[in-house]
């Protein structure tokens, strides 16, 4: 029996805009026990097949809004919490997206709850396939 599911297995896909593939996206759940204001997210580090993507190319979407990781630093509205148990969508802008076939993803959710003397940095791994 495997451990808990972190990623939405159906959520891995390339993202197209104006007929061009501008990146890829996936959906995953926060590895903590409560929902958080986006402002306490310090980073989302995305590595696929050994390649780590630049922070400025990462976007986070919750409740229909999309933010850069610079923008999340000031997002404190109750409307845009990353709710416990809900998938948030991460989009990584990279021309051409990912190739069709099998891949491995390793993501670190860097979150800083105020009461903790350290940051949470859960590493989230999964194999997936792009069709």
């Amino acid at each position, binding site marked *: *029996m*495997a*451990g*808990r*599911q972190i990623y939405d297995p159906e959520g891995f896909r390339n993202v197209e805009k104006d007929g061009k593939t501008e990146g890829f996206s996936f959906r995953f*759940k926060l590895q903590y*026990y*409560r*929902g*958080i*204001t986006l*402002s*306490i997210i*310090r980073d989302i580090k995305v590595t696929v097949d050994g390649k780590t993507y630049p922070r400025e190319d990462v976007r986070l979407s919750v409740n229909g809004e999309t933010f850069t990781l610079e923008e999340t*630093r*000031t997002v*404190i509205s*109750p*409307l845009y*919490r990353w*709710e*416990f*148990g809900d998938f948030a969508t991460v989009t990584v802008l990279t021309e051409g997206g990912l190739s069709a076939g099998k891949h491995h993803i390793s993501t670190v959710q860097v979150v*800083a*709850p*105020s*009461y*903790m*003397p*350290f940051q949470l940095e859960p590493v989230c791994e999964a194999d997936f396939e792009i069709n």
Partner: protein
Amino acid sequence: MSAQIKRSVSLYSYQDEYYSGKLDLEGCLAETAKAGATGVELLAEEMIRQFPNPILTEEFQEQWKGWMAKYGLTPTCYDAFLENRIFDNRTLSLGEQVEMMERDLKLASLLGFQSLRTLVSTPMDVIEGSLAYAEKVGVKIGLEVHAPFSLNSTWADGYMELIRRSGSRYFGFIPDMGIFCRRVPDVVTDKWRRMGAREDCIAVVDDAYCGRVEKGFVKIRYDLNLGKANMEYRNANGLAVLTEQLQKMNAGPADFGYLNSSYTYSWSDPQDIIDNIDHIVHCHAKCYNTTADYRETAVAIPEVVAAYRKAGYDGYLSTEYEGGESLRDALPVDGIEQVRRHQEALRRAIEVQ
């Protein structure tokens, strides 16, 4: 007639069921009642979407009251998270933190809670600055005493002084039963074993833990720099020496991981409960693994509950199941069954003749 200790469940316990979508908030309340508890403890930020907005609406307040009536539950403790570093470039000012604490006290009172859990990172002047409001809304602020902290320590002295100085009955302590661990929880040991910890290294860590229980832990001191206080505490309790010992054994990352993990549990004398009973507003009955015959494998439930009985405590013991965090990387978690077993273990300890 002796005082009756009451039982509650913290919805923290059902986090894995909520995470997977097996239970929603009402489902958790139904399970709480089924487990035999009459009280419920809520982490609003865990299970109420768009916190705190819904709590401010009459619609949600009515729904919550309806659930309490339907499941025969009393709201016991509201677990607050003072997000005083909500921005990454500064800590909120004292005024902003008091404002946040008062907001949380208000939310707790709107849902009928009797106490509010605040964390050890809460500055003392934020507590002091919120006491008048706490009294106004009738919600006691309880400072969680979580391992590695303990009552009867210089860390607690400052807070006792605050109680004396303010004369307030609206501030006290919420002991977490993780401070009464006779050993490292078996699910924790098994997790590190799964991650590659060696038996000889595990034995060194476990023996050292037993040694600390026998000799008594060196207590952590008060410092809002929690990281610093914690490192000093660990080294005062032998971490540096044990690290060296494991290095000599050519231990690997999982062995050091287990060693460090062992310092997140501690043992206090249950007499601490009796000594401080006048200032205990609630209790987190932490549990990690309760067997089918109702024994918690690490926490000294019978001794701790006996101390509460002896002290005449008539508040709640609130099950807080945390074993899932040692299982969920590789194994299924059954918070529902663990809570059921733990509630029965508490019941037996409370009702023992």
